[in-house]
């Protein structure tokens, strides 16, 4: 009697595992996972299926993962002492060329309107780029303290979240990179996590399936209202952080000891368009739900739509 239920739960989880391309490695795929607990790998990526759940371990001897970021889900992310530079990043959410006004009808280029009711995304694994080399930096929260888990939740309904800080070695860098999402370690944590990865983030999925990385919800009015998805849920329940798209935003980016600032634009209309782009999803078995399909489209097209940019060059 129990096995059919376990099989159902297992199939639920299987259906979340999928192939994805990210990190500019087009064609790199990870097959749909098998039964829960199995791993699958293909190509050079060594991608995994459900793999092993990682709890809140880590600490001073935590394994360093990809790009120099911790392989564990560490709550505390203390900055090295020589990182005396500060950069304040102001986030501008845009719809077309205009600021997105959360909770109000926004005019779109085609004459329709969009009323955003929920606009959230995780940014993490922030790094500065210089001559092709990515150097992880310390993400700071609104209190100028290291952000928990090195994660920032952008929430259009919370003005305070439209700003974060970076602590790094002073200098001029070529650009900024981050992942739109969270690390695999945090995504698969078996223990409840604190904000911004608690249930109040509204980004948690059930069945230990991890988190949403991008959550868009809103209503459209107008003749083209059916063309864009009203709900977009982009997440990655299992698998490595590669499933969280890595974005590079060209600068220059100046870090100085007397804090500098830069404006990071996020084009919500481009995210919505990416979520509606025709996409061959035959290589993956997704759970039913238009929002999940839209989320997978978004993941696969996020880089090409170039939704992230700096508004103007900083003065070096």
């Amino acid at each position, binding site marked *: 009697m129990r096995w059919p239920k376990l099989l159902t739960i297992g199939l*639920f989880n299987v259906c979340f595992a999928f192939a994805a391309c990210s990190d500019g490695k087009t064609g790199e795929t990870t097959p749909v996972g098998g039964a829960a607990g199995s791993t699958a790998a293909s190509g050079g990526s060594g991608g995994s299926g459900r793999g092993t759940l990682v709890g809140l371990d880590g600490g001073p001897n935590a394994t360093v993962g990809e790009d120099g970021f911790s392989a564990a889900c560490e709550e505390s992310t203390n900055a090295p002492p020589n990182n005396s530079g500060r950069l304040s990043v102001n986030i501008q959410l845009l719809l077309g060329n205009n600021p997105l006004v959360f909770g109000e009808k926004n005019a779109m280029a085609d004459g329709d309107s969009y009323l955003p009711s929920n606009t959230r995304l995780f940014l993490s694994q922030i790094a500065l780029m210089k001559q092709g080399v990515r150097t992880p930096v310390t993400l700071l929260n609104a209190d100028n303290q290291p952000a928990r888990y090195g994660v920032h939740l952008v929430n259009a309904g919370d003005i305070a979240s439209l700003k974060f800080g970076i602590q790094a070695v002073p200098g001029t860098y070529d650009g900024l990179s981050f992942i739109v999402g969270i690390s695999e370690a945090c995504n698969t944590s078996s223990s*409840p996590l604190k904000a911004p990865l*608690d249930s*109040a983030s509204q980004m948690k*999925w*059930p069945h230990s399936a991890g988190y949403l990385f991008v959550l868009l*919800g809103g209503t459209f009015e107008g003749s083209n209202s059916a063309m864009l998805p009203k709900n977009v849920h982009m997440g990655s329940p299992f698998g490595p952080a590669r499933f969280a798209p890595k974005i590079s935003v060209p600068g220059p980016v100046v870090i100085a000891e007397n804090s500098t600032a830069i404006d990071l634009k996020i084009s919500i209309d481009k995210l919505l368009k990416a979520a509606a782009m025709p996409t061959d999803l035959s290589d993956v078995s997704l759970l039913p739900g238009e929002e999940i399909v839209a989320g997978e489209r978004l993941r696969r097209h996020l880089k090409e739509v170039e939704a992230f940019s700096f508004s103007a060059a900083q003065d070096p």
Partner: protein
Amino acid sequence: MFQNRLLAFVLMMGFPVACSSPAPDAPLTEIPLPAGFAETVAQIAPKDNSLTEARAQLGRRLFYDSRLSRDKSISCSSCHLQKNGFADPRPQSLGVEGRKGKRNAPHLANLAWVATGLFWDGRAKTLEEQAGKPIEDTLEMDLPMDQAVARLAADPKDVLEFQAAFGQGPNRDTLQKALASFMRTLVSANSRYDAYMAGDRSALDDAEQRGRELFLSSRTGCFHCHGEQTTTNDGFFNNGSHVEGGDPGLQALTGRTGDLGRFRVPNLRNVEVTAPYMHDGSLGTLQAVIEQYNKGGRGHPSTDPQIEVLNLSAQEQADLIAFLKSLTDHKFLTDPRFAAP
């Protein structure tokens, strides 16, 4: 020998549950940690109102004290009944002189972890702030705070208790802090669903497990607002209950178009006994709730885009209700530590 082994077996079977719920005579500050939360109540209590037994017990006494209403006819407990999960079985509560309130009184379990605002519209940011408002609300207890404080200050026993708890006598701040301290201790974590989440797969029967799967599926999307473990995401949503001309909810505070008809997502602890439901108490049964969601709400254009017609069968609706009933924590509903002293 057999009886000893049988006794040991029976004791072992009861051990997990017994260990997870405080004894009837345990301190109020002995508080279980429900699934889904990373920090205990003691850890998240504000620094200026750290949780102590003295404060919680004082708050408990005040919770049942009718002197906090103008005509001394009602107390907090008049609208928050323990047997109903500290909710009110009436659609709207009745204040002094039978004055009818505007909304259904929310239940009080697990509010210690709320960070997004209390009341249906989130207008109180902390439990301390929330505690004072019903006392002064003219539709509820209708007693200005200075008069409430004066009544307490006139009683030497009260003064002593406040001094012991806060190092000072009764005033607005200490009165609100005491009530907030008691409310922080109202933690429900011993339902059969809790046992299931802790690993006891036999804690839910087949219908309840089917209901749980539906609850956590993309097909219903219940988990988007009522998360898997905490049963709330602490957000504000228009779940389809709004009707034209109805209570604007969060919009009354923010003025935003998109906040029309948005109300706080309550957790579903003890939902079996916290009827009626919704901000207006308009749905008297869980069946009515499921039916409203099943048809995609009441059709107002302000409804959240995640609310859609579900096309659930009668069996699926019954399974969902069975699962919701598994959230009932009978220990919480009868714990003498929460009852009138």
